[in-house]
């Protein structure tokens, strides 16, 4: 009496089940883990902003306090550095977005001699390590004779920030310009609009999302920039990252964590807001 080897087909084996589960969800689990990994330092920063360190170094959890959140600018120099960072970012964003958008339009719409070279040229600053960008600017500033045209300070910083932002703006706007409905412009002009009117009434609104994205990118690049600022800022002008760097020698006070977390929350909030607005507008 041989044991029946023909067994009724049972459901998939455990291994197969695990396999299928993994297959369906592995990637999602992995994505979740990866996002967690990316967020981990941010979470630590946020958590430690509520810490009440006994001394100067903020590295072990001691006590919960809202003091840092209530009065973040108590630390000398913190408020000024944040202000400088904001003004710098605003200024460089405005100029870089303007310059970059013009270039993007030129590159996207027109065929002209030197187009390929210009493409390459615009890409170069993005391909250059920040340290080389900062160092070469420093060399320039230092070489210009006396009295120096560029004493290291806010102006030198602004120039540097605009410079590195332009390329990113061009790339971002150009990505949005691909597939631009040029026939709309032609239609407008057929209907008698001048190029100027056409630009402001037809072109600009259509590229506005791209320009906004580019501006946001430029703003965040500028606010967070460290290396180039380190080289071209001199010592009298401190941006927020420079402030952090200086404070790190002794210990980052929780107020810095507060500002860092606040910037994060504000940025996330703004993006969420813009998404909501877009959803509303598209009637979804």
């Amino acid at each position, binding site marked *: 009496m041989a044991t029946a080897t023909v067994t009724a087909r049972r459901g998939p084996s455990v291994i197969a089940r695990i396999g299928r589960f993994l297959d369906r969800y592995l990637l999602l689990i992995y994505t979740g883990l990866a996002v967690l990994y990316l*967020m981990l*330092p*941010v979470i630590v920063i946020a958590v430690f902003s509520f810490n009440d360190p006994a001394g100067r170094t903020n590295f072990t959890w001691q006590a919960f306090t809202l003091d840092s959140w209530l009065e973040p600018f108590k630390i000398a120099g913190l408020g000024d550095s944040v202000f400088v960072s904001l003004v710098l970012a605003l200024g460089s964003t405005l100029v870089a977005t303007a310059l970059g958008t013009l270039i993007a339009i030129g590159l996207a719409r027109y065929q002209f001699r030197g187009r390929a070279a210009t*493409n390459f040229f615009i890409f170069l600053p993005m391909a250059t*390590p920040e340290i080389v960008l900062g160092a070469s600017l420093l060399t320039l500033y230092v070489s210009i004779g006396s009295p120096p045209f560029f004493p290291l300070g806010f102006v030198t910083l602004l120039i540097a920030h605009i410079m590195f932002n332009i390329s990113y703006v061009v790339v971002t706007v150009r990505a949005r310009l691909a597939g631009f409905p040029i026939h709309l412009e032609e239609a407008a002009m057929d209907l008698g609009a001048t190029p100027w009117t056409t630009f402001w009434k037809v072109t600009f609104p259509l590229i506005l999302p791209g320009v906004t994205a580019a501006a946001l990118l430029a703003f*965040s690049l500028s606010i967070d920039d460290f290396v180039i600022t380190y080289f071209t800022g001199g010592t009298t002008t401190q941006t927020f990252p420079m402030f*952090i760097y200086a404070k790190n020698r002794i210990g980052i006070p929780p107020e810095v964590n507060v500002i860092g977390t606040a910037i994060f929350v504000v940025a996330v909030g703004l993006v969420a807001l813009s998404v909501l607005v877009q959803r509303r507008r598209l009637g979804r």
Partner: protein
Amino acid sequence: MRFLRQHRGLVPYLLLAPGILWLLLFYVAPGIVMLGSSFWEGSLERGYAFSLENYTNYTNALSRFQPHFVRSIEYAGIATLLTLLIAYPLAYGIAFRGGRFKNLLLFMVIAPFFTSFLLRTISWQIILGDQGIVLGPIKEAGLLDNNFAIISTPFAVIAGITYNFLPFMTLPIYVSLEKIDIRLIEAAQDLYASRSNAFRRITLPLSLPGVFAGSLLTFIPAMGDFVNAELLGNPQTTMIGNVIQNQFLTQNNYPTASAISFLLMAGILIAVAVYARLLGTEELTSGGV
């Protein structure tokens, strides 16, 4: 206005002019000045003299800092590889399994970068510290020797670089993956290709432009990085970026510093030029894919 209409051909140049001028003044000119200063000899106090014979600045820099150049290539290379290994599945997951949450997930990949890059790196110091959140409890449990450290090792530096450049690798790969027409994959499977085969022959090659873009966007800045090495490393892990920083800002040794910077930049430009040739320059500013 009529002028513009009559000289249609000028319009692109006029559009380009302000931005290009800015870049010429503040990207190209400094580069030229730095090239010049790399042929100086002297000191800030004694003054500098230009001479083409000072090409020795380059040869001396190469020989003196060769370990640093090599180490930078090593660390940046390993970090780029690691980033690729982590980012590819991530991008794949978002592109093919993200569904409705694609944009949200993408956003969460970028979101950490709204916090200061410095703060995040310093945060790793705290997380990986010898008595920190991770190692402290493990050591107290007796599972690890008290001397064991993650901070101040090459591992920490590479981990830091990997972390910091993860989005730069993820986004381009995502963009190129997302562009893939899913019907191609379905067709392949209809033709009896296994899942892995379909991946290997359809998805992977089509995603290569994104991989290349991401790799460049990771490797190049990583080569010049000094913050990770400074905050997470030790004297044996210094990269060429640390040397440049030290030579420029502490030693004020502009000739050597310029020479080193130029060596770094030249090497990278060659790589970029090769890349540009391979893919055609149009790709570079049209989204990097």
